[in-house]
Every structure is written in C-alpha cells, then in structure tokens.
C-alpha cells in the first residue's frame, strides 16, 4: 500500500525508568487522517508511549518526527503548541473551574492561541460537538465520569491539534456511552484530525481504528489492520496467557 508522507513517525523510541525498560525500540508511522490504535496488557508501556510523544516524559533515546520535525525531548507545552496533544487516562480537570473555563484554557494556550470572542465561539462549538453544551456552566468537580472523559477530549480539541492522542477515553463507560464515544472519535477524524488511541476495550478499538499497534512489556509485538492483528497468535498469547496462545 503506497503511504503518503506520515504525519507522525516514531523511530527506535526507548524509555528506561531506573532499571525498568518501559519502551524498547518502538517504531511506527501514522498517516494523516488515520485512526491508529495502541493496545496491550496492563503495564505494556502504552501510556508511557503517549507521554514520550507529547513530552510529558522525556524519552531515553529515539526519534519522534511530527510533520517532518524532530520533537523528541521538547517540553509538553511546546509539543502542544506544534499541534500534538494527549488526554489523560485519569481525567485531570481544573476542578474549581467551570467546564467552559476548562475548555477555554485549551483554546487560549494551545496551538490556536485564540482570544476573546474568537475563543468563546471556538469553545462553544467544541462543547456542542462533544455533547457538553448543557454542562458549560457546571463546575468540573461536579461532573460524572462520562462527562469528565468528554471534558478531557474537549480540552484537548480546544488546543487545535493536528494529531490527537486519546488515552483510554472509553475506560469506565457503559456500553451505550462507548458507542457514543466511538462515533465521536470518527467525527473527530472526519473533521480533519489524525487520532491515536489507547484502549482496553478491544471491540471498541477494532470497530473504530484503521490500524493497531500491540505493545507487550514495552516491545512491539504486532502492527496492522485490526482483524489480522487480533488473530495474531502472539497477541492472543499476550492477552490471554501463553497456554491459550498455544491451544
């Protein structure tokens, strides 16, 4: 398959915490407009990978090319300013601020750097798209888990990224909320963004992603279209244990 110039290209990315090899030699590319899934068992290094991509953790070595420019080692805020943003696995809202104020932080200080009425329009639009319109005036601390996940997405969208990394935005949601979240992810892609997503919910990932990367103990064990990857014996073994893989 002929690939266009990738928007994000990761080469030999490595992250070591003390004596623990959290990511070893991870390399992959994501094309513009793709929905790219990252799956793996607990502790596989998925969130560490996202943290290294956006710069909230410095990678030990390796290269991250975003729109053709090296961003490995840049601080988080600088990566966000270039158009690559990630949500938090455990929602981290500004609790004493309203939903609207939370989202406007992204609009003011992200890649868009909008001010005044321009920022307010943008925030209102995002709140509408993420289904938080009715919650605009509520304090973030009063939100239920589903809305907190949406708020994470809304804030990240408000920074006007080219690539949006979603870290388990479907965790803790009920089945109907998951369906809604899946269509939100598709809508985000259709609006012109590239999406990377970590997800535990394998059916949700398979239903929405174009390609999947599988991590296990910090190593890539498979990459490809969901139906192939999910049948890969090594992937099955990683998820269900070696015996199941052998059977």
């Amino acid at each position, binding site marked *: 398959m002929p690939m266009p110039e990738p928007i994000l290209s990761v080469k030999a990315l490595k992250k070591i915490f003390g004596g623990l090899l959290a990511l070893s030699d991870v390399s992959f590319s994501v094309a513009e407009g793709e929905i790219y899934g990252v799956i793996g068992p607990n502790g596989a290094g998925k969130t560490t990978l996202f943290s290294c991509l956006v710069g*909230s953790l410095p990678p030990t070595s390796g290269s991250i090319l975003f729109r053709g420019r090296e961003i490995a080692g840049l601080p988080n805020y600088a990566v*966000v300013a270039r158009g690559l*943003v990630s949500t938090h696995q455990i929602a981290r809202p500004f609790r004493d*601020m309203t939903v609207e*104020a939370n989202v406007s*932080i992204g609009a003011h200080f*992200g890649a868009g750097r909008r001010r005044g009425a321009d920022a307010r329009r943008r925030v209102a639009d995002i709140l509408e798209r993420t289904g938080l319109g009715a919650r605009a005036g509520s304090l973030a601390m009063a939100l239920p888990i589903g809305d907190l996940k949406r708020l994470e997405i809304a804030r990240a969208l408000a920074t006007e990224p080219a690539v949006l990394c979603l870290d388990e935005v479907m965790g803790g949601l009920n089945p109907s909320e998951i369906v809604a979240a899946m269509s939100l992810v598709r809508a985000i892609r259709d609006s012109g963004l590239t999406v990377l997503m970590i997800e535990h919910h394998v059916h949700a990932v398979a239903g929405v992603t174009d390609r999947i990367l599988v991590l296990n103990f910090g190593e890539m064990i498979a990459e490809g279209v969901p139906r192939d990857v999910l049948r890969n014996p090594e992937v099955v073994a990683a998820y269900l244990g070696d015996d199941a893989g052998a059977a």
Partner: protein
Amino acid sequence: MKAFPWVAGAALGVLALAAPLVLERGTLNDVWSLAFAVILASAWNLLGGFAGQVSLGYSAFLGIGAYATVLLSLRGMNPFLTLPLGAALAAAFSVLIGLPAFRLRGPYFTIATIGVGEVVRVCASSVSFTGGSSGLRMPPGTFDFTLNYLSMVALAIAVVALAAFVKRSAFGQALAAIRQDIDAAEALGIDSTRFKLAAHALSAALVAVAGGLYAINFQYIAPGSVFDFRLSLSIVLMPIVGGVGTIAGPVLGALVFSTLQIKLLSIPALRDSYLFIYGTLLIVVMLFEPKGILGLVRRVFNRRLRRFYADA
C-alpha cells in the same frame, strides 16, 4: 450585585485619598500602615494565591526596593524617581531566584524561598555599601507626609485594581490552571515556568515600590527591619487569613493584621505577641474556614440569602 464590590472599593479608595483633609496625623498613619499591608498582601497573592506558589521570601523584594530608594536618594536622585528602578531590580532578582526555585514544587519551593530571604538579609548586613547591620538614613529634606500618604494609598488602590484585572485576564486564567493542576496546564500548552516567572516579577516589583515608599516615610532602614523574616511571614499570613486567591481577601487580611498590630503594639508588654495571635488565627482559619474570612462572610451571607428566599 456584581458591581457592588467595585463601587464599594472605589468609594473606599476615594475616601482614603480625601482623608488628609479631615483626619488627624495619627489616624492617617494607621491608614498608611493599612495601605502598606494591602499592597504587600495583594501583590503576594498574585503569585501565592492565583498561581498557588507559596513564597516565604518576599522581604527580599521589600528590602531591595527600600535599599534602592535610600542608596539612590543618597546619590542625589529624587526619591520618587528611584521607585521604578527599585521595582526593576526586584523583578530582575525575582527571575534570578525563580529560575531555579520554580523547578521545585509545593513545600520544597516554599522552603527554598525562606533560604533566599535569609541569604539576602545576611548579605545586606555584611556588605559595606548598605551600611551593614546599622542600616542607612535617607538624606534630609526628603520627607513630606501628605505626599507619602497619598502615594501609598494610591499604590494600594492600583495594586488591588491590577489584581482584579489579572484575575479576569487570560494571564490570570493560566495562573489558576497552574495552581489547580500544573501538569494538566502544561498538557494544554501553558509554559508554566514562564507564567510563574511573570507573576513573581510583577508581584516582586509592586512589593519593591511599597518598600521604597516605606523607606521614604520612615527615613531610616536596616536589614533587621526591611529584610526581617517575620515580615515575609506576615506577608503570607494576611492573604491566607483574609481569603487566598481572591481580590477582597488580602485586603481583609491586611485590615485585620494592621489593626491587630496597631492595637497590640501600643501595649508594651504585648509588643511581639501579634505574631502569636496571628498564628493562632491562622490555625483557626486552616481548621475551620480554609477560604479565610471572605469564605466565612460568603457562607454566612449565602445562608441568610437562602433563608430569606425560603421565608418569602
């Protein structure tokens, strides 16, 4: 309703500025002290309250402003023209100490600032051009009480207005985000170090101007007075007791503090006990109303309001 604090604040400001026409010198001195306390508390609140970076080193900026004014006045400058220079010097110094100190978080940052304040005090007492521990006197003919009074009150009004403006601005919003979750703030594009440095520099400059005015009014400064650690402590206590991170809170705290200090200082046996009383007040506030006096007022007021509507 929303305009009320502004109208009340503006009216108080005008009254304070007009006070020299009717009030006697002793009372004006008390208002001067209140204005001085309001500036220190509100300026500290820009970094400590809005951005949540609790610094215990603010006497350094007060002292830098005071020493800049006296040293430059002794070299023939108009004392009031020295104020912006003292402010610039304090702002530059705040950046210098902020660059390493802002790498630390929470209590570690606070501890580092205690060290900075003490180092500055020791330096000022040991080098000769500051007059060492015996201090410095302003050149004669630089005292004009009415002018001192008006400039301190005007600065207090300006600082409170500036704080209100900052709180509503995008800058204030970034500081609030940093206070609530610094990592989440960075993840949305906020360069937290830059914003903390800016808030630090702004508040340091304002405190330095107050320090310069202090020197002009008292005509004499020494490391033991302007670089005193107890001063740094008072600067922190006022906004916390009044209501940290708010506009009216530091003003209320300053009012409580300067009243206590004036009343207690007039009793010789209790000269130094105001810190003890203030410490007790602080513990009570922390235990029962962490949002300070302002939080208490709001709570009581809201309850009254609810009861009023329930009865009606």
